[in-house]
């Protein structure tokens, strides 16, 4: 049994302008110790998917259907008290912006200890000791002194380390990292990613890595879900996605990876804007931006179906298999040529 199995998850938000379909039928699963990368542009529904699983959406406006089976128990119908037991204990989360994710008026030691004492009946001293161990594990220098500091005394990278320490304090089975490196500078990004990878091995947690950076995914993910406009465009193993990408959107993402070895004036970009989730375009949601658009794309929403004869590699595109293979091969050949 998979650790987490999400099935046809839909999250809609009621707003003054109408219903926003933030997540519209997403399915994936995460096995024990595995890493799943969820990739997509801002507003493609990556974060909302995970907040829904955690039950952290605003209750007043969010409507959710589908299933999120956690070790056989549906999180979407679980009681609030049960969810609280799971949150921070079995499933932990780190967020995009470490500058604002820690409470400015509490010492980081206390915030770490709080995370532990919410789930385990331990003394203040034990929790502090464990917090200190974790701070050392995530590489905070002079952790024994810094444990009594306040968040504003830490840099962004260090705060993200604290967040990671806080997330791991209860040995969670699943760590959801919501763009953990977006707000950090490039050198720090690499450090944080390496850290997450190392700790994943140490703690044996599964990881869901939400990112808009395919490079990050290539580096650490076992499986990849590519999301576009609240739906899954393509999903499969990292190998499948990178060796034979099947969706024009995935091609676009790969084409827009910045390359240091290449002397280009501008990065390649996907033309246009992501669609409004209030009134998504008919047919394939990517069609207004797709360079390969056909008449059928404007009318029929493509089903998520196996790519070729591989049932583990799913994609949602009307293009015929041959064109896809040819275009993907062209793209990859181009990237290889540039790289060599």
């Amino acid at each position, binding site marked *: 049994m998979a650790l987490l199995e999400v099935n046809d998850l839909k999250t809609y938000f009621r707003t003054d302008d109408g219903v926003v379909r933030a997540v519209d039928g997403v399915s994936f699963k995460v096995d024990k110790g595995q890493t799943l990368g969820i990739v997509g542009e801002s507003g493609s529904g990556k974060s909302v998917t995970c907040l829904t699983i955690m039950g952290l959406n605003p209750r007043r406006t969010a409507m959710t259907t589908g299933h999120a089976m956690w070790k056989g128990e549906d999180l979407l119908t679980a009681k609030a008290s049960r969810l609280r037991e799971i949150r921070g204990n079995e499933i932990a989360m780190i967020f995009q912006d470490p500058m604002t*994710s820690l409470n400015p008026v509490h010492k980081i030691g206390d915030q770490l200890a709080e995370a532990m004492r919410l789930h385990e009946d331990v003394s203040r001293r034990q929790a502090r000791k464990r917090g200190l161990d974790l701070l050392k594990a995530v590489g905070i220098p002079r952790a024994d002194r810094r444990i009594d500091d306040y968040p504003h005394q830490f840099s962004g990278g260090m705060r993200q380390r604290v967040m990671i320490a806080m997330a791991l304090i209860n040995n969670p089975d699943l760590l959801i990292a919501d763009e953990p490196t977006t707000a950090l500078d490039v050198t720090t990004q690499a450090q944080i990613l390496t850290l997450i990878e190392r700790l994943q091995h140490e703690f044996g947690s599964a990881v869901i890595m939400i990112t808009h950076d395919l490079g990050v995914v290539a580096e650490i993910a076992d499986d990849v879900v590519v999301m576009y406009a609240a739906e899954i465009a393509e999903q499969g193993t990292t190998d499948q996605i990178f060796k034979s990408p099947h969706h024009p959107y995935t091609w676009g993402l790969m084409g827009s990876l910045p390359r240091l070895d290449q002397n280009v004036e501008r990065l390649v970009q996907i033309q246009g804007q992501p669609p409004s989730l209030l009134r998504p375009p008919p047919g394939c949601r990517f069609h207004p931006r797709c360079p390969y658009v056909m008449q059928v794309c404007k009318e029929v929403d493509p089903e998520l179906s196996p790519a070729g004869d591989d049932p583990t590699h799913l994609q949602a595109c009307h293009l015929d298999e041959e064109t896809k293979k040819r275009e993907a091969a062209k793209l990859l050949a181009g990237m290889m040529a540039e790289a060599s």
Partner: protein
Amino acid sequence: MFRYLIRRLLWALVLFFATTIVTFIIFYAVPVDPARTICGQRATPECVHRAEIFLGTNKPIYYQYYKFVYRLFPFSFAGGFHFHEPSLGRSFTSRLSVNYVVGQAAPVTASLVFGGAILWMLIALPVGILSALRPRSLLDRFAMVGVLVGISAHPVWIGLIFAYFFGFKLGWFPITNYCNFFNATGECGGPVQWAYHLVLPWCTFAILFAALYVRMIRANVMEALNEDYVRTARAKGAPEWLVMRSHVLRNALLPVVTMLGMDIGLALGGAIFTETVYGLPGLGKTAINAIANFDLPTVQGVVVFATICIIVFNLAVDLLYAVIDPRIRLS
């Protein structure tokens, strides 16, 4: 820390001179001669002359101001360093020591202001927090209408309405008079009578502030609820009451402390409208009467007292803020 205090004290001194000098100038800009007022309608030149010498108004303004400052500071260097009792001078009209006048009026105003502050916080905290938790709910809409009314309605009008209904029509509370908390005079005195006589003034005084604070607390709590660290707390599995207490309110109420300190400091200078409506012999009433009688020393006394209150409360707020908000360091 020490340097910070020194700097604050120097600023306080500047503020003191600024307010008192402005009061002096405004007073002498009004074409009224206190000496002539004392001598009455048929003032003889001799009487006016004697009165001027008696009050000291025959001297130039700068000399009068010097005298005022000299009396107020507890030490002087004139003729060698020596200490003396700081004094605000004597009233032009009643000849009472202004120290005594302010000393009589200050407890009345303090009773009104501190009682009122407790009352408005008792209203504003729960209403503000509940409105923020349930925006657009019936309670929230009701509260927001109340806020609008509270901010728009003038305290004098509210005071008169209260006095009419709860005092005159229903007879629940006295409309006028003040009773000492200590030192009962006759049958009026003691904590119970004191509070009983202050119920209507407290309500009147608190309404405007309650409205302002409900609005502020509601906005702050709503803002804090959307903070990332609140989401973090929930993601840790914290129950909602803990999220509220330790993460939302702890942050949302920081600015409220500042506002409260400054408002109390300001109000101690005299809650003029409320005191006037209910005839409370507080600082506001004293100042109004003194202004009407061109009684400069008394006006000046109230100004000095109000300035000191504002300075002290602002300083207290700053010091307190450094304690409750770790991001603030005094330097």
